């Protein structure tokens, strides 16, 4: 039990340290989010825009600039966290395989990635919410942060799966960028105000978009939709666990050890 705890804390500690030392990701978080949201603030016309908020079943008429800012924040956090988790999983796969073949159980290695994902998602979502609050006052800022967090963990799960599954860096970057772009475009309240086609619920950003828009413009708390992001994460993480297990397993048969001659001399 003590050994299992030590394995878990060691893996979590080093995973967090690795992310804290990843300067590129930190720069991306610190500068990209305010840059993106400031662009929306300056360039998008604040005309009234109608949007079917499926979370409450009502159509709301709100400022298009603010609506686009929420959509932009979702796009930014999903890209950053998805990309961050993809790169860290992809780049450390050979190292993780070496650890696994040396005897490190895979579960703590994967749990460590989840711990890093949760912290990175929470920090990114809180920061993006703070930037939005700099420009205007959402009705429920904490719920908005929760919506962005649920989007980030969903895409973080996708990033871990792609990192454990794909063999080339460019493939993963392309898939994450295109998925996030398509997802955001298809649910963008401005480009698709009705969001009325069945099937839109199956997109990873659907739940987080509904929660974030509800948090920005209404007092409703759509608990069910809040769980959709983490559900995406759970499904992706399970698939990632299978891919990670397959790619780090040992193919050697177990054989009884033999005492090496001279071993006793070591004592």
């Amino acid at each position: 039990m003590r050994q299992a705890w030590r394995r878990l804390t060691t893996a979590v500690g080093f995973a967090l340290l690795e992310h804290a030392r990843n300067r590129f990701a930190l720069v991306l978080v610190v500068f990209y989010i305010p840059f993106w949201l400031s662009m929306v603030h300056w360039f998008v016309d604040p005309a009234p825009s109608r949007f079917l908020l499926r979370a409450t079943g009502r159509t709301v008429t709100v400022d298009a600039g603010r609506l686009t800012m929420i959509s932009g924040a979702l796009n930014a956090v999903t890209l950053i966290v998805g990309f961050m988790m993809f790169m860290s999983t992809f780049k450390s796969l050979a190292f993780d395989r070496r650890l696994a073949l040396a005897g490190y159980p895979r579960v703590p290695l994967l749990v460590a990635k989840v711990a890093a994902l949760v912290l990175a998602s929470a920090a990114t979502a809180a920061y993006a919410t703070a930037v939005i609050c700099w420009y205007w006052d959402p009705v429920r800022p904490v719920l908005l942060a929760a919506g962005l967090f649920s989007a980030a963990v969903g895409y973080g799960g996708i990033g871990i799966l792609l990192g454990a599954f794909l063999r080339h860096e460019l493939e993963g970057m392309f898939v994450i960028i295109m998925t996030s772009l398509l997802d955001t475009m298809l649910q963008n309240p401005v480009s698709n105000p009705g969001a009325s086609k069945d099937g839109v619920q199956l997109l990873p950003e659907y739940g987080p978009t509904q929660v974030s828009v509800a948090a920005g413009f209404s007092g409703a708390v759509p608990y069910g939709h809040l769980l959709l992001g983490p559900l995406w994460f759970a499904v992706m993480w399970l698939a990632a666990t299978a891919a990670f297990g397959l790619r780090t397993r040992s193919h050697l048969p177990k054989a009884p050890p033999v005492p090496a001659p001279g071993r006793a001399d070591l004592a």
Partner: protein
Amino acid sequence: MPGPPPALHVRDVHKSYRARHVLRGVSLALEPGTLAGVVGENGAGKTTLLRILSGQLAADRGEAVVRGTLGHCPQEAVLNDFLTVAQHLRYFRVAYGLRDTHRAEELLEELRFGEYRHTRAGELSGGTRQKLNLTLALMHDPGVLLLDEPYQGFDWETYLRFWQVAGRLRERGRCVLVVSHLAWDTGRLDVLYRLREGAVEPWRPAPVPDPSYGDPSVAVGASR
């Protein structure tokens, strides 16, 4: 009376990548206390063979059996660039379930890179990365050690120290298999195999002048 069972036993191992047959029936058996070498040209399948022996790759046919603990030093240093040398040792100490890093500290001193203990792997030179790569494979004192081009990037002094370390491992009954594309310093090996056309055969290369023996402390370029 039969001898001890082989520490490493490879029986008729085959491996293909699509239509390309890389290994076509590799067989060899190494007893404990053997320092062996496998040489072969680039692309002969040396790394594929070591990946099968280390459990990273499944053979299409045949079997590789390792008795005892295994250490594997891959050709490319497999490290985490964000972690320091000391953090790597701590991570692998937990992986191997060791009580301390005593053996790793010994290797740090033997290979002369203790001064980089608190340097991140991403900032190390190629040779020092390779020293850390080797230390991670050796720090649990494995019974069978697989080394893929282990002295790549080493300076002359470190190269000689490497052979001293390998020789001591053999004396202590460890089985060491060194894979290289160069067939020099073969006099240091108990047995040498050549990997050719997908199979290994015992090999005795033509004798060449051997300047490599000696005390590393008096080697050209050795630090005093």
